[in-house]
């Protein structure tokens, strides 16, 4: 008994220590980036000034004065929010149909949707540029919203389908018996029951949209350029501008990190529990 108690005591200490160690290792690059953002470019590359340095806000001042940070940030917010809403608008009915009235081809459709994620983006870059220019959509919010929606749609439908499948069909049937139409079933029954799953899916979709860089960098110039493009523009092959780059990166990932922090409980719940468990 004493040995078991000792082991329990040891594991009570060991696991949290291990968890903290892993968390600190994972968090270190982010902390390093944030610290570097408060250093001058000259100090940023000096190893002896890793933790002890005179903090400066010059990188942030430079970012807002010279790089028009707020324009990039507002574009990120507009495109990510709109793309998330549009994706859910399409994905919820789609997942609903596949979860509650599956056909013989449902599994194949799901696999086909997922397979579109396997296509290397670079393979369709030039056709995309040609087509969007010809349609007059290059460098517009509309284009970025559509692109972000389409690249996230498969994964969002998959996630929602998984949540919806956990909802007993009887509940939907009962609503039908009560004379509720299809839209009513989705609005009055499905969404309230699967709210946790929908919220966590929406949050993940928003994070994916915010962080997307391949298309947002290549399909924009000035009007619809997002924070990804601002970061890209601060990489320099000849010159150590790590302070500036870190400030821009911190300001770009900051909002999403804070959002994730606030929503982590819902996010973990949504990802680990089913819809009605």
């Amino acid at each position, binding site marked *: 008994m004493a040995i078991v108690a000792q082991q329990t005591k040891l594991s009570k200490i060991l696991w949290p220590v291990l968890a903290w160690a892993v968390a600190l290792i994972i968090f270190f690059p982010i902390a390093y980036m944030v610290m570097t953002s408060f250093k001058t470019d000259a100090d940023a*590359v000096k190893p002896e000034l890793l933790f002890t340095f005179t903090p400066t806000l010059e990188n942030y001042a430079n970012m807002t004065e010279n790089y028009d940070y707020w324009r990039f940030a507002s574009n990120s917010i507009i495109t990510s929010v709109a793309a998330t809403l549009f994706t859910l608008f399409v994905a919820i009915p789609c997942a609903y149909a596949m979860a509650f009235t599956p056909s013989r081809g449902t599994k194949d459709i799901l696999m086909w949707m997922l397979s579109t994620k396997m296509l290397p983006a670079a393979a369709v870059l030039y056709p995309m540029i040609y087509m969007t*220019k010809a349609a007059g959509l290059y460098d517009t919010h509309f284009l970025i919203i559509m692109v972000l929606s389409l690249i996230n749609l498969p994964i969002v439908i998959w996630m929602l389908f998984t949540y919806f499948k956990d909802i007993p069909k009887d509940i939907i049937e009962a609503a039908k018996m009560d004379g509720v139409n299809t839209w009513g079933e989705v609005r009055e029954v499905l969404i309230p029951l699967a709210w946790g799953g929908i919220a966590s899916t929406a949050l993940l979709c928003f994070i994916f949209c915010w962080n997307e860089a391949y298309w947002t960098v290549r399909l924009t110039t*000035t*009007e619809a350029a997002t924070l990804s493009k601002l970061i890209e523009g*601060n990489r*320099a092959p*000849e010159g150590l501008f790590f302070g500036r780059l870190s400030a821009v990166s911190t300001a770009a990932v900051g909002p999403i990190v804070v959002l994730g922090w606030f929503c982590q409980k819902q996010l973990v719940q949504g990802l680990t529990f089913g819809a009605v468990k």
Partner: protein
Amino acid sequence: MSLKSTLSAATALGLISAAGAYADGHSELTIAIVNNGHMINMQTVAEAYTAETGVELNWVSLEEGVLREQVTSDTATGGGQYDIINIGMQEAPIWGQAGWIEPLNFSDDYDVDDILPAMRAGLSYEGTLYAAPFYGESSMVMYRGDLADAAGVSIADNDSWENVAAAAAAMHDPDNGVYGACLRGKPGWGDNGAFITTVANSFGAAWFDADMRPQLDSPEWNAAVTFYVDLLQSYGPPGSEGNSFNEILALYNEDRCGLWIDATIAASFLENENVRYAQSPNAGNPVGANWLWAWAFAIPAGSPNAEAAQDFIEWATSKDYVQAVGNHPEFGWGSVPTGQRASTYEIPEFQAVAGFAEAELAAIDSAAPEATDLKPYVGVQFVAIPEFPEIGSAFGQEMAAALSGAKTVEEALAAAQAAADAIMQEAGYY
């Protein structure tokens, strides 16, 4: 809201956005630039240009690789996104020949003859200037005078590679964190590819023969790459295959490099007071190991604002611009773009703050991008053909493999030769 009305609203929103993006008048110029110190400064200095002319400038700053990719795709698809683009010496003659960029014709006041001859030659096609240099660079030896004196060695202009290796050996003190030679090793045609090509040039090697057949299996290439690999493996910092300009600059400023051969622009970033400069070495060959590069402004053929774009380029690459930076309260004479105009090097205020000026000008003047009997193609550290980035990238990977010890020099050169041969054959050169 019904589905129909929602979709209509979304479409309308998109069309409004699209229309907004193309509603720009002629008083706006969109300029794609590479991100570096001179370009960053220009965005501030150009406020005076906007105040004077009323032309609004939209800057799109991009990392070098992404800039090339985006500018290439924009130019190849008929342009329209950018009025002015930042391109280098590799692109200017090729794009000029393809008609992707406009020829530049400046007023007499511009004094085009003041542009350094090597720069003018590298940015022209058949004698027509297609891009105006904003700043230019060559490469040279930068070494620690204090370490060299303590070790009793020195490096002369155009010294032999043997003497350079001996100096590196004498300054090499790994126990105290000092490495004799810091050189580019990171794979990439503009990274290790650029440096190794200049070494090969000085050993009498060339990328192609007169029929454009790759020559990487020649004894000269073998000698050059063997020397490079031996030098770095013996006296270089560990992990040199991951080092390029920025990594070595950080090492040098931490006082961990004895000598560094790289872009002349590095001189303006060096913090150690004991730095000395020397012209690039050679191996008894008339071609020295110094490269030539410029970041220049060009006008895509599809630009609807070509006239305004030309006016801006004339201002940004003029003598007046150099004066504007030198006299700017935020910058000063240490920050003026160099390597483009001979007159810049004659300005006393600039000479007073730029100890590297003389060495830089000499390095640029001695670089020879023109085709010769020895090197029958245009370009120094690259070859001005569209296929070169692909060939150079494959070459860079193989050289990094040789440096890390994953392959022998012979194996790496054989693999690079095979890759280059396949690419050139596919392109229809022979």
